């Protein structure tokens, strides 16, 4: 384990949160493919199996099963933290998540409920094989009865994962794998959770609001830095909670800046950006100076590694959209 003073990466922060919560709560169970002795393909679960051999379960290779088992474990009062090895492999589990995990509480009028965390590495940009670079957050945000959370830093990964495990209902927890090891922070292992339905203002500003989440937060901050060189003050919001959306933080910002650019890796049509745009259009119509703009992945199939970069929102594409938004007076 890392000493409290050493900075750690996002994936190490996930690991630290799992260690912390398993040490505090004997009901927490970790399950998934290769999560045991191997410590997970990204090492997110490293060291857990040695400490808790009966509570860290290497499952057979079947994603629907991982979700279905989690439901059965959770209705017995355990708190499963299920790992899907990559977000692109979560789809076989969709039926279990949408038909059961998300609605067990409602279907039984509160008699049974499913305190499950469905973890998965998420997003593109690491030159991975096919089906390893997807951004499916909108599918899950559309499901009533679950939360969707995406941390953007080691500290947020630690605090939000603790909150997700402690939440009495299912949480889909997507970990941006592009920044799994990109940044390091000192993350005290104090066991304090972050709120599950709050967006974070990463940088205050008054000329334009930039909303993003996951790994795209870093390109967004880079844009803010470039804008600052031109004396343009951008406010950067890390959405963090994809469902429910912390509307107030976004509205407060847009009411101040009058301009909004939303950035996400996922395809544009019916993406989470569309929901944010609709909310802002309805509630901040008179505060808007310029049309709301989205910089997103294209409506195309996630490309394989060679052309991956072309399909992702880049600082250049974002700056072009931001400039266009700023030009409208």
């Amino acid at each position, binding site marked *: 384990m890392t000493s409290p003073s050493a900075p750690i990466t996002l994936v190490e922060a996930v690991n630290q949160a799992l260690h912390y919560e398993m040490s505090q709560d004997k009901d927490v169970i970790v399950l998934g493919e290769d999560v045991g002795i191997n410590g997970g393909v990204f090492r997110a679960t490293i060291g857990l199996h040695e400490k808790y051999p009966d509570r860290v379960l290497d499952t057979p290779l*079947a994603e*629907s*099963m991982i979700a*279905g088992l989690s439901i059965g*474990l959770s209705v017995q009062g355990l708190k*499963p933290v299920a790992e899907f090895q990559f977000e692109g492999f979560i789809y076989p589990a969709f*039926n*279990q998540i949408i038909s059961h995990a998300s609605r067990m509480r*409602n279907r039984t009028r509160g008699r049974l409920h499913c305190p499950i965390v469905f973890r998965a590495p998420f997003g593109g940009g690491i030159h991975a094989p096919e089906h390893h670079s997807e951004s499916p957050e909108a599918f899950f945000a559309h499901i009533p009865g679950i939360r969707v959370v995406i941390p953007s830093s080691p500290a947020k990964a630690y605090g939000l994962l603790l909150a997700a495990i402690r939440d009495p209902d299912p949480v889909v927890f997507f970990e941006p794998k592009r920044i799994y090891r990109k940044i390091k922070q000192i993350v005290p292992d104090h066991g304090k959770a972050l709120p599950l339905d709050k967006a974070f203002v990463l940088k205050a500003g008054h000329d334009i609001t930039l909303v993003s989440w996951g790994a795209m937060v870093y390109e967004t901050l880079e844009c803010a830095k470039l804008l600052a060189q031109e004396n343009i003050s951008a406010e950067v919001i890390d959405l963090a909670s994809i469902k429910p959306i912390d509307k107030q933080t976004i509205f407060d910002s847009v009411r101040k800046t009058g301009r909004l650019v939303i950035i996400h890796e996922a395809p544009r049509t019916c993406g989470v950006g569309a929901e944010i745009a609709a909310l802002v259009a309805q509630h901040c119509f008179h505060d808007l100076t310029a049309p709301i703009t989205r910089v997103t992945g294209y409506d195309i199939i996630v490309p394989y590694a060679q052309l991956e970069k072309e399909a992702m929102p880049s600082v250049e594409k974002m700056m072009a959209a931001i400039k266009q938004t700023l030009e409208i007076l």
Partner: protein
Amino acid sequence: MVKVNNAEIEYYQYLNADAVASVDFSTLHPSVSHEQLLDYYRTMVSTRLFDAKAVSLQRTGQMGTYPSCLGQEAIGTAIGYGLHPEDVFVTYYRDIAAQLLRGVTMTEIMLYWGGSEQGNNYQASMALQDLPHCVPMASQCLHAAGVASAIKIRQQKRAVLVTCGDGATSEGDFYEAMNVAGTWHLPLVFVVINNQWAISVPRSHQTAAKTLAQKALAAGIPGEQVDGNDVVALQTRLSLALEKARNGEGPTVIEAITYRMADHTTADDASRYRDKKELDSMKKTCPVARLKKYLESHQLWSEEKENQLLQSSAEKINQAVKAYLETPVESVESLFAFHTAVPTLNISEELS
């Protein structure tokens, strides 16, 4: 060539369709007494009467679509009597007798099929941990494996029993559940209720496998066939499998062979795809008539007792129907009340 595996599937029947016993029930392990047989018979009759009432409630517009369990009463009865209170029952949706024996009320069952989630909020202590009706095929098999995993992690001496139909054995979740149950040696009993029809698709079109029980062998667990209309064989084989599970001796798959004497649901018309001759001939295998005949031939039953049972069952059912019909529709607020422990921002806004 070296033979690396032998696969054999056994079929159990102790009371045949003509009500002839092939063994002395008192010598079975576990044995089945006359008193038990009388209990089973009463449960089966009462279930059949309730089932008929449920169909008529649907036909008269007082309940929603309902899947009749006509012809399958013996399986639910054996499950209900085989389970211990601390065990967990994971139902599909045609297990009325088992649910009633777990303490789920007729009113709750009617509320469910009448269109209210309240019907899944079982109040009986025995059913508190039982899972609700499960409509998406075979998905419940994985929940059962999860419950069984929890029991195993906590080193408890409890068993889990899950039911599914013959059609559900074509689903991936069925295989995934058997596979993990075998790998992890889970305290889980699968009861495949092979009623020969998955809506309009006959068992022969579902799989080329000769038996459904043999699917267990691929998962490394024992599978067997039982006459699903023979409550004696069911009771014995289920009890053994459940005891094995409780003792940490692993899972079992039991294919209970029965016949869906009704339409798939009240929304179905089986005459479109099923030969009436087949139905007529299968009626001769009826589990209720079979047991009655056996009881009568052993002077354990009489017309007088039959009439008393019919009357007392009808009274109980009528009371439950009254309670169902008098249960008020939940408030509109209830639509929003049970999504998460604490309503999320978007839900509370919609509510307000």
